[in-house]
Structures are given as structure tokens and as C-alpha cells.
């Protein structure tokens, strides 16, 4: 055991967990402080009166009692974003190229995982499965989703991006947009021909939908139950595991060193005997694996998927990557968590705070507001370095 441990860089295992913990707690605390302060202020205004009339509760109480649930939801979706954002950020780090099709890679992962589970369900295995087997099936679905998405990502790079390396920057980007559109309809076509419908529902099995209850709160007339669903826990645990593995791969292995070398300086890396093409394929593979897993987790969390399911999560994950500083892996984690939090907070509280004038329907474009603000005031992102432009 001791000998084995010598080959493991324990620091690189602990470091990302520490980072994730810090980011989660930090952003949760910050966001909570902001909404609570806002709520206190709003209680003095017409907003408070309005809510008191409607629900017989102060804005402050309402905000506070919802807070734990909002934080947990924000964290769950934040980790999904982080996992997708890593795919964008890795490819960007190596090729300085936005893999626009990454959102469809994610969607393919989701579909493969869900279809597998639907198949198992129709085969009758899911219904009576023991808890252990249920988890095994879910794991299988995640792995299959990862493999499909990873393979697809590599294939897409090979076919649609590699021939364009060296062309002007817009050329591969446009090709990537093409791939994204193509894949959306290919999913639709395949689903349409095989199952006759585009919307797939994640089968219910195991104990994933149960909630662990922390406690009950009474708030005005209504009662509020505080808890976390098991599937949220699964999403968070799997995401954390993946992030730790990825961090280890990139920062503590030989292959990781090669990836970092290629990202730094491709021609020099190739002179040092690194097979650049293979490293690029590997980068796409890793990004695809993460994206695929995120797809299955997303399906687990939100149950319903359709061929366009990748579009918004993809855009938001990209925003998260930019927010954290694109090309920077820690930044992608931070960006994902912050964005997930911001979005959930905005979705939950905006309606109340604006007396229903603008509510969660603006949730999806909220991310873009953030993106634009970041790009204006800190284009290198929260953790990006300010790199001098080469003349």
C-alpha cells in the first residue's frame, strides 16, 4: 500500500476537492448574503406589501426559508455546468477554438444513457432491481453515455476540424456550428426512425427520486419541506469524482504534461517528440467523456430530454468557461458553480423581488447578461491571466 501511494500524487487529489469546496461555500455565502440584504431592503417597499398581501409572509422570511433549497439546486446545476465547461475550456486551451458542437456531444451522451435505461426498463430488468443493481445500471448508463460522447467528439474533430487546422479562425468555428446543427437533426432523425418520438423520459427506478428530509418549516400559511433529492447527491458526487480524475490526469500524469505542453506551444511540443494530433484527439476524447457523463446526469436531474437539450446548457457552460477564464480548468469549475448559483438564485427570487414583472422566464438569458458583463470588464475571466497580444 505504501509503495503504491508513492506513485500517487496525493496533493493533486486533495487540491481540487479543496477548491470545489471553497468555491461552493464561497459563492453560496456571497449570493445568500446579497439576496438576504435585498430582501431586507425590499421589505420596506411596495414589494414587501405585495407579498404580505398575497402570501402573508415578509420578503425576508420567504427568502430565508427558501435559501437552503436554492443553494442545493444551484450547486447541482453548477456542477453539471462545470463538467460541460471543462470540455470547452480544454479544447480552447489546446486549440484556441470554441467547440460549438460540444453541446450536441453532451446531448448525445444524454440520449445514449437514457436509451440504454429505457431499453433495460422495457426488458423488465429495471422494475424489480435491487438498490445495488439500480446503481450499477445507472453507472452503466453513465459509462455508455461517456463512451458514445467521447467517441463522437474524437470523430467530429477528425472529420470536421482537423482538415481546417491552420485556416483562419472563423473557418473551424463555422464548421463547428455546422456540426452542431447537423448533430441536432441526426439525433432527431435517429430517434424519429427508431422510436417515433423526440422527447425521451428518463425511466424512474432505484431510489433516486427520494428525498432526504432535513426538516420542515412553516411559513405563513404554507409549509415548506427542506431536503435534498438523492439524484442531486448523485449528480454532485459523480461530478466531483470526474473533476478530481480530470485534474489528476492533467496535472499529475505524463499525458497531462503533454496536454499542457501542446496547449502552451504546439510547434515546440511537436519538436519535443509529442504527437500533437494524438494529444488533440485525447483532449477531445476527455472533453467528450465529461460532456457525455454530464448529459446523463442532466437527464437524471431534469428527467426529460429532446434533441435540442444541449443548446442552453452548452451556452451556459461556455459562459461559465469564459467567466472563469477560458483555457483555465480551475476557472471552469469556479465559473460553472457561480453560474449555476446565479441562475438558480435569479430564477427563484426575481419573480418575487419584481412583483412578477420579470421572473424565471428570463433565467435562460440571465447567463448572457453575465457573459457580456464579464467580457466588458474582465475579458480574461475571473482566473485567466492577462496575456499580452502578440504583434
Amino acid at each position, binding site marked *: 500500500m505504501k509503495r503504491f501511494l508513492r506513485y500517487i500524487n496525493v496533493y493533486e487529489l486533495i487540491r481540487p476537492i479543496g477548491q470545489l469546496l471553497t468555491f461552493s461555500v464561497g459563492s453560496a455565502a456571497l449570493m445568500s448574503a446579497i439576496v438576504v440584504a435585498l430582501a431586507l431592503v425590499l421589505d420596506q417597499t411596495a414589494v414587501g406589501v405585495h407579498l404580505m398581501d398575497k402570501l402573508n409572509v415578509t420578503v425576508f422570511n420567504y427568502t430565508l426559508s427558501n435559501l437552503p433549497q436554492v443553494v442545493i439546486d444551484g450547486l447541482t446545476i453548477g456542477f453539471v455546468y462545470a463538467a460541460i465547461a471543462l470540455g470547452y475550456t480544454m479544447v480552447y486551451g489546446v486549440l484556441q477554438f470554441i467547440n460549438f458542437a460540444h453541446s450536441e456531444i453532451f446531448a448525445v451522451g444524454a440520449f445514449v444513457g437514457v436509451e440504454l435505461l429505457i431499453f433495460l426498463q422495457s426488458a423488465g430488468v429495471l422494475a424489480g432491481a435491487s438498490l445495488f443493481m439500480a446503481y450499477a445500471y445507472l453507472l452503466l448508463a453513465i459509462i455508455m453515455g461517456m463512451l458514445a460522447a467521447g467517441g463522437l467528439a474524437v470523430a467530429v474533430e477528425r472529420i470536421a476540424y482537423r482538415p481546417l487546422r491552420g485556416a483562419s479562425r472563423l473557418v473551424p468555428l463555422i464548421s463547428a456550428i455546422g456540426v452542431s446543427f447537423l448533430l441536432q437533426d441526426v439525433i432527431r432523425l435517429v430517434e424519429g426512425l427508431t422510436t417515433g418520438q423526440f422527447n425521451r423520459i428518463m425511466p424512474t427506478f432505484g431510489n433516486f427520486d427520494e428525498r432526504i428530509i432535513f426538516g420542515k418549516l412553516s411559513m405563513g400559511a404554507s409549509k415548506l419541506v427542506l431536503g435534498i433529492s438523492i439524484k442531486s447527491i448523485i449528480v454532485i458526487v459523480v461530478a466531483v469524482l470526474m473533476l478530481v480524475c480530470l485534474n489528476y490526469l492533467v496535472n499529475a500524469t505524463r499525458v497531462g504534461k503533454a496536454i499542457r505542453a501542446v496547449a502552451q506551444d504546439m510547434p515546440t511540443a511537436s519538436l519535443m517528440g509529442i504527437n500533437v494530433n494524438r494529444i488533440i484527439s485525447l483532449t477531445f476524447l476527455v472533453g467528450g467523456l465529461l460532456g457525455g457523463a454530464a448529459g446523463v446526469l442532466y437527464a437524471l436531474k431534469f428527467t426529460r430530454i429532446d434533441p435540442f437539450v444541449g443548446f442552453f446548457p452548452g451556452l451556459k457552460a461556455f459562459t461559465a468557461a469564459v467567466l472563469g477564464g477560458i483555457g483555465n480548468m480551475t476557472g471552469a469549475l469556479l465559473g460553472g458553480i457561480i453560474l449555476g448559483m446565479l441562475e438558480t438564485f435569479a430564477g427563484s427570487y426575481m419573480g418575487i423581488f419584481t412583483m412578477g414583472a420579470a421572473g424565471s422566464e428570463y433565467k435562460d438569458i440571465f447567463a448572457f447578461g453575465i457573459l457580456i458583463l464579464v467580457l466588458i470588464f474582465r475579458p480574461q475571466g475571473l482566473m485567466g*491571466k*492577462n496575456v*499580452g*497580444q502578440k*504583434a
Partner: protein
Amino acid sequence: MALLEIANITKTFGGLKAISDVTFSLDKGRIVSIIGPNGAGKTSFFNTLTGIYKPDSGAITFNGKSLLGLRPDQIAARGISRTFQNIRLFADMTVIENIMVGMHVHYKQSALAILFRLESFKKEERESEQKALRLMKYVGLKNVENELAKNLPYGAQRRLEIARALAADPQLLLLDEPAAGMNPQETEDIIQLFRNIRDKMGITILLIEHDMRVVMNISEDICVMDYGVKIAQGTPAEIRNNTRVIEAYLGRGAVAGQHEEKMQ
């Protein structure tokens, strides 16, 4: 009064000092070279001068006016043109169009004149076409006005870049390794061209160059940089005998230089 005065400029990139406390002045009508080993901060110096980088501290004065805080295009409009170390032409535009882009700061055409092809517009276009042709001839490009810039041979691309820089009628021309990759004959020609530009057009030239034949042949003044610091300035003869320069950088170059002198 000096045309260009630089006082104590410093530029750092994340802890690395690309330019460190450099003071430098350049009189009108001179040809001055900046030399130094790779990574000495020469190109960063150009980039700071042309506004691509913002210096952390120090002052840059051109014609008595400060250039600090101006955008690169505003600095170009003040009369500083440049070429680039790795040629940057507008590859998919024709040769004549490249030069006409160089005249951008001088165009007076208004939206109205453009849309309705007013006489003033046509006249200006005609004149700039002819000026472009004159400049082509001047730098030694013939009958290629409608070729795409990317289709020109290497040496011609360098010349085109110089013509484009001249099109703005600059007072100061910055050349970043203009003789790189040229054979001896081409180098000879281009040295003649620089002399011509200074003598006939009265344009002050500041160049970065590695080729010691060019530097020693053409410069009236040489500024030596190493690790972002200016370590010497003087005439070619002085620089050749400056022990600090020989120590820091020229070591081998000085020997080569002396060797060449013997050959001549």
C-alpha cells in the same frame, strides 16, 4: 528638439520585465538601429511605442506631444508608421489596395460622397491610386498592382509592407527586422531604399535588425538592449568597441563584424 523622446518607460508582463526603465531620444532625419539578442525587448519596445502595449510607467513624447493613452490608430495618425517582424499584409487584398489602406488617415471622403460618387470622391480615389503606383515604383514593385498580396514573393512582400507604411506619409518609420531572410543583393538594395527614404522623403527611420551588415552600414546611431534594459547607445564605431556590449551580447557578433571589415 528631438522628434521622439522616451523617458523611463517600463513594461512588465506578469512579473517579467520586457522593458525596464528605458530612456531614448531620436532626432529628426536620422537613421537609428535598435539591436540586442532575442528576447531583449526590442519588439516590445516597438509595440509600446505604437500603442499596442500600454507602458506601466514613463513618458513618450512625439513632436512635443505625449503619446500615452492614445490608441494605436491615433498614434499612426500622428505620423508613426511601422512594419512587422513577421510580415503582416492584408493577404487577400491586391497590392494597390494594401497601399491604399495605408493612406487611411488621409482620406476625406464622406458617406455622402461615397454613396453618390461625388466628384470629390472620384478625384481622391484617382489620386490615391496614382500615389500608390508611385510608391510601388519607389520601393521597386512593378506591374503587380492587381496581384493579391499573398501571391507575391517574400522579398516583394517586405517591400510592399514598406510601401504601405510610407503611404501614410509618416514622420517616423519603424522597421522591425526589414532585412530578415533576404539574400545579400536584396539586402544591399533595401539599404539603398532606406537611405533614399530618409534623404528624399525626409522620414526618420528607427529599425530593429539582427543583420550586422545592415546595422553597421546604415545606422548613424545604435541603441543596444539586453533583458529589457538599454545597455549602450552610440555610433557604430563606439558600439563596436563598447566592452559592455561585447560582453553582454555582441561577443560573437563583434568578431564577425571585425572579420567582415578585414574582408572589405
